[in-house]
């Protein structure tokens, strides 16, 4: 079986010969391929965004290497009383501008996340007030969440990168956080600079700065992964030369793989029948072998471990012509879309490829404004043996399509009460594929590479990289 990639080489590098004290100084340079960097927590679209946001913002909870909940900004475990989940706030946490974080600020952040066009799936687990705002209150140093239905693992949703706490800065558009780095600057090319936060309660990070820059050149990827000035590269295009060591995760809980899907828009007539035709027409093995590389596996399911009956190819009821939307700078590359086009043509579906910018693709996906779409689903939820993480991954996928309501209170209730949560998740997964018109094609590990000049980087179970202990 192919190795799921993501991170060990860095961990290994850090335990080889080294000085007893960790050196201070130097910068990390992080490149993100193919898409602009999103710095607002609630809008994190994948591992790169979650990594960048994790520099600045912290969450109430995190997950440790075993997948267990650990408090970060919370002072202890959540208290659950019926539909109310209370989270005690860690006292005396300092914000980047010197103020002390309060429970009211945290509650306000969650309300603000909910009212934007966010991917924060926890929002739909909350009841709304008369103004349509989620009921999150602060009281006596606690943050209280009012749920629509009992969900014992609600706090695991608060461990998502989407649930990071940001606070409006006084006199600045950019929000601030409590994390190990603070925003320093952003230039017109979308390059961010982050500086160490000297008063970070866990201690000032070792690096003097982190620079995050988007890059669009497919051909530059190989050079970047060999360049000693580069330290982390996210989203290396498939088929690129990956001379640099891959990062692997040590520990039992791994980040979830990305799933490459072909999505059928709601405007397409007879969507279910077409999904069946496409499902049978795609030659996944060939697509994976020729275009995606060793780290990918063909799949017909959205989630690892969910069994899907293989479908027989079906002839379409009538030949049709559809637009296939693909990202101009997508990791899967140009040839991949053309191969999909050929497979569909053989099944009687004429497809014209429309290449758009990542931003445009994002907007059209969320607006459900497409006929066919090649997309990458990257839920920032760990791939653990716990069914609840599968449930939350589905929730995260629904939020990517701006339809978090697809996970209904009744689904959560059934998950909690049925005694067979894995079966509930499998049924929900099947209904998701139908509701969102998704045809899974392949599963592949998040693509992150590193040069060996950066040590102490670890991968969180969510897939985000933690740079707080990184050093040169």
């Amino acid at each position: 079986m192919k190795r799921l990639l993501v991170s060990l080489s860095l961990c290994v590098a850090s335990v080889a010969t080294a000085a007893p004290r960790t050196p201070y100084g130097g910068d990390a340079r992080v490149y993100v391929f193919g898409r602009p960097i999103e710095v607002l927590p609630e809008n994190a679209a994948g591992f790169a965004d979650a990594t960048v946001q994790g520099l600045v913002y912290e969450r109430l909870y995190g997950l440790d290497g075993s997948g267990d909940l650990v408090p970060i900004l919370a002072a202890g475990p959540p208290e659950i009383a019926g539909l109310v989940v209370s989270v005690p706030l860690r006292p005396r946490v300092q914000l980047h501008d010197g103020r002390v974080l309060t429970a009211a600020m945290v509650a306000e952040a969650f309300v603000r996340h909910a009212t934007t066009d966010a991917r924060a799936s926890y929002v739909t687990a909350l009841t709304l007030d008369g103004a349509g705002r989620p009921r999150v209150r602060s009281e006596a140093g606690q943050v209280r969440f009012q749920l629509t239905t009992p969900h014992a693992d609600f706090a695991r949703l608060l461990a998502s990168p989407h649930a990071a706490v940001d606070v409006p800065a006084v006199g600045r558009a950019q929000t601030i956080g409590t994390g190990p780095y603070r925003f320093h600057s952003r230039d017109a090319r979308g390059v961010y600079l982050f500086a160490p936060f000297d008063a970070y309660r866990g201690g000032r990070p070792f690096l003097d700065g982190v620079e995050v820059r988007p890059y669009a050149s497919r051909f530059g990827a190989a050079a970047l992964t060999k360049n000693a000035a580069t330290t982390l590269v996210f989203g290396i295009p498939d088929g690129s030369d990956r001379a640099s060591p891959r990062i692997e995760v040590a520990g039992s809980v791994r980040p979830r793989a990305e799933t490459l899907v072909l999505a059928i828009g709601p405007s397409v007539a007879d969507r279910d029948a077409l999904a069946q035709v496409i499902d049978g027409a795609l030659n996944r093995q060939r697509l994976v072998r020729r275009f995606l590389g060793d780290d990918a596996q063909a799949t017909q399911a959205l989630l690892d471990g969910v069994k899907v009956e293989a479908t027989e190819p079906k002839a379409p009821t009538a030949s049709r012509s559809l637009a296939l939307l693909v990202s101009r700078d997508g990791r899967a590359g140009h040839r991949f879309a053309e191969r999909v086009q050929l497979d569909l043509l053989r099944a009687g579906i004429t497809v014209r490829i429309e290449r758009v910018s990542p931003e445009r693709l994002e907007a059209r996906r969320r607006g459900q404004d497409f006929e066919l779409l090649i997309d990458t689903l990257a839920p920032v939820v760990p791939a653990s043996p716990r069914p609840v993480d599968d449930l939350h991954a589905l929730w995260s996928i629904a939020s990517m399509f701006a339809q978090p309501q697809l996970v209904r209170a009744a689904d959560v209730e059934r998950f909690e009460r049925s005694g067979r949560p894995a079966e509930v998740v499998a049924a929900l997964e099947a209904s998701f594929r139908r509701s969102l018109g998704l045809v899974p094609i392949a599963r592949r590990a998040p693509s992150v590479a590193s040069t060996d000049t950066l040590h102490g980087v670890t991968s969180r179970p969510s897939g985000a990289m933690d740079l707080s202990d990184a050093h040169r």
Partner: protein
Amino acid sequence: MLTLAFALLAATPSADLDGAVTRVVSDLRLADVSGFSLDEDLAVVVSGDSAWTTTVAGLIRGRLLQLGVEHTLPLPPGSTEAAARQAGAEWLLRVQVEVVDELEMVSAQLVRIDRGLWAADPHSPGPILAIADRTFSRRTTAPPPPPPPPTGTPSLAGPAVVLSAVPGRVLAMGACAPKAGEPDELVVVTQSFVRTYRFDKRGLDVVAELDLSKLPRAPAPAREPFGAVVCDGDAIGFGTTDLDRGYRVVRKGARLEIDADLTGMPVGRNADGWVLAQAIAGRNLFASTLTLPRGRGVEITPSYAMLATADRAFVVTTAYTLVSSTGKFDDPQRVGRAGSALAHLVGSPIFLHTAPELTDGGDVVSMYSTEYPASSVRIPSAVQALTIGRFREGRVDVLTASWRGRRDTEIRTFSVADPPEGNAR
């Protein structure tokens, strides 16, 4: 109900015989086994058809002695619980040496065989309270060299055995006697408390504690924190990079009470007062300015470690150079290279230091002395803090602290063979 301390660990095929035996004894965590005392009578039965059985038996006894288990009773291979009980033992360590998949495996079980007078059936099998095993390759293992003959001069005698674990990250350790002439107590400074421990029959026993959580914090704590401990008669001076100043504490029953603030981190003390250093804000370094007794300032290079006695001082520079000087930091001399932990045995010319670089994640504690030959002991993990003291009658023990993430710190121990006489307290 007795707690089952289960320490069955993954085997390490490449471990050598000596390392395997040391790990087995460490993994048993004898100091943490419910009801076990280091001074109880422990029967040791080493069985198996391996050619290494006799060697293992000798090594096991040596490692137990290292921990302070002095009353061991070797019994012939295959001896039963009843034989151990008959011989007067209270505990039985059953060790098996066998061949498993081309590897030799050492496994050990600690059994409580003294069920007490009130047990319904005093001869029933005793509970197994600790288990450990390790493998070693017979192809790559040469018989361990015989111990060096006694030289009459002090030397470090390893290997280092795990003694205990302390919650959180240990930042500094010291050996301070509560009263002149009494054995030293171990002083441990972590991010959340200062504790003194006494070596007793159970290993380390907490004597007194100070909670640090309410003390004023440093405005810019270090990501890789460190601290310092210095004895001051029956008081203790300490400081850490988490706190905005140092403190002097005195023992009050089970509490340590602050009786004075210090304007820096104490790195030495003489009759005239403290030697105080400052950490660079947010860094794992001492700043270049030092305050000597009577308020005299002195400038030295920024350093990773510092230790001052009445007549000598040692500094580890950021290039990992060990520099020796007078007690007033005059006349600096390059001594060699060292890591970031230093220790001194009071009343002796013995100084210890760690290695300037880690090898395969491991460290080395070395003895530096103007009077005795150098010697060293390998520690399998990075040593963050180090101390040497007369914690037990007639012995000089070295203790090392190695972080295990942020969760806890592993305390290892080994001794000084042929230690110098008495002390100068």
